[in-house]
């Protein structure tokens, strides 16, 4: 058991012939991900790392059973590629692309809602079911199987925390990257609900950051959870009104502050780490 994806998940790579698409197809295959097909308009008939390439998603679907798609598509064309995957009926669509206009993101999510598609991202590192399936771009070596669920808004910070967990002997059940943009497909609550129900997950790490109110909403749900949650929030030192790299990481009109998030999470019973390397200790403490 794992959440959203697992060892049987068949994956399609959209944009497979591009630099990023090819590089990460190789990495994902090395991790053990079942990549069954790729799409690149005009490149149908080729193969990449032994994976057959099709011109359209529909053509790939005619020849393969596909559960999830991952997009390595430049921002101006990402909306169209996401629409294509959703329209074809793929259940999970992972959008790695960053710098997608927010209006395109709202359209993608509105369409996905109508079709019941799960959107991970945009601007995400993807999702890793440790030891079974990696859909996205994290370095392979740090993700080992275990019982900690991780849900995060940012990539490298998550690798840092996952590496710390692994070094402390704490493997992960599933690691989910929500994405760093203001509008993304999944919220913390969506993923926390799944971890709460997942028999394999014993505790959850939430990696948040300033901006928006996703962490505050998560706190409301954490209050009702039976599994312990450890949180780390980045951006304590960020000045208001400045966008800290991620489109979503900005304190606007007094909202989305570090203090507000820590207060909400602490009140909900989550343990909040001051520094990233404290996360494993707090998990061990929570699990007793």
């Amino acid at each position: 058991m794992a959440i959203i994806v697992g060892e049987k998940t068949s994956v399609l790579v959209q944009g497979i012939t591009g630099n990023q698409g090819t590089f990460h197809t190789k990495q994902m295959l090395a991790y053990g991900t079942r990549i069954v097909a790729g799409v690149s308009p005009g490149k149908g008939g080729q193969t990449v790392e032994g994976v057959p390439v099709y011109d359209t998603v529909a053509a790939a679907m005619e020849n393969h059973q596909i559960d999830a798609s991952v997009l390595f598509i430049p921002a101006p064309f990402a909306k169209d590629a996401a629409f294509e995957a959703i329209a074809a009926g793929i259940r999970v669509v992972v959008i790695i692309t960053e710098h997608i206009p927010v209006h395109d993101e709202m359209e993608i999510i509105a369409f996905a809602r109508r079709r019941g598609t799960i959107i991970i991202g945009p601007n995400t590192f993807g999702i890793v079911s440790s030891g079974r399936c990696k859909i996205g771009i994290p370095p392979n070596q740090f993700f080992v199987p275990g019982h900690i669920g991780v849900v995060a808004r940012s990539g490298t910070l998550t690798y840092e925390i996952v590496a710390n967990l692994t070094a402390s002997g704490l493997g992960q059940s599933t690691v989910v990257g929500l994405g760093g943009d203001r509008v993304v497909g999944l919220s913390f609550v969506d993923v926390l609900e799944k971890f709460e129900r997942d028999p394999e997950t014993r505790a959850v790490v939430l990696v948040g950051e300033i901006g928006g109110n996703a962490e505050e909403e998560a706190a409301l749900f954490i209050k009702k959870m039976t599994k312990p949650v450890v949180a780390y929030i980045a951006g304590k030192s960020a000045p208001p009104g400045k966008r800290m790299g991620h489109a979503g990481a900005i304190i606007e009109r007094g909202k989305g502050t570090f203090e507000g998030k820590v207060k909400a999470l602490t009140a909900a019973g989550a343990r909040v780490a001051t520094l990233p390397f404290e996360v494993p200790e707090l998990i061990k403490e929570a699990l007793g």
Partner: protein
Amino acid sequence: MKLYEYMGKELFNRYGLTIPRGKMVTSPEEAAAVAAEIGAPVVIKSQVLSGKRGKGGGIKFADTPEEAREAAAQVLGMTVQGLKVEMILVEEKLAIDHEFYVAITVDGAAKAPVLIASAQGGMDIEEVPDEFIVKEHLDVCLGIQPYLCREVCRRLGVSGAVAKEFSRLLPILYRIFREKDAELVEINPLVLSGEKLIAADAKVTIDDEALYRQKDLPVVDDRTEAERQAHALGLSYVQLDGNIAVMANGAGITMGTLDIIQHYGGAPANFLDAGGGTGMEATAKALEILLSTNPRVIFINIFGGITRCDDVARALVKVKQEKGINVPVVIRLVGTNEEEGVRLLREHGIEAYKVMHEAAAKAVELARAQN
């Protein structure tokens, strides 16, 4: 990208919304001339990218062209919310029967646009009690339909000719929001003058990620030189006011790096996310940007995923050899091609750290030692 008020109003005007008669000018003489042309009392509004201009003295009234000249002379060159006033908008003073608030923005939690309206306009929307605010989430597949306009009017308590004006205005505002890739279009106050609704202010923010397809909009660039250079390299950079220059890879970990520096009592000079997969050349240029800000210490924190440690090491060595680095550099380097990176640095007399917080503590210590 935030638009100045006068730019927002020009945009509104092009889409058929009513704005006050007026003009943006940069001198007291021009202000007097515009006032004379309007031939009635005018308002002089400082054009800065900030709210609360009234409280800062950035808005003045004048009854005659001579008064307009004086008021303009006062406002031009003053500082409003820390911003120097170089442009003013001179426009007719409206006869106000009522002030509304209306805006459309992106609601990240709802993952959809939201329409916000209130019959209590003219003040900060944050100060208006919730029961006087109408909030409607919009479906991007539907936009604003007539039924929604009727419902919003009912809840605002407007009817007849005013409701008709509202029902004309709301879909236009939504069109601007969508067609211009706006993150925010806000009119506060939306003035009822007789039976006309007039946009007495305009706050428009355009999504930076969509500027590539919004070529007809004016360009407003309020970034610092270092921010501009970093952006040209495809990196995000924010200037802060400390003395430890920071480079890390990834927005989250860069924020985490700033936090840890502050935690140990240091002050970061900037946020620089060198991104995933930035090559050697761009990394070297990014380092040069950091050097140009004259920090006391440079702290590089790399957890290599797509970013390769050897690229970062090569970039550092290159800058050290070609430009010379006269401040201490603390570097933490782990992940992809770590051994190669660490070896390269060692050959050039730089010892890399493995643990983030130990490296951060060292950077803070070195910055302090120079006091």
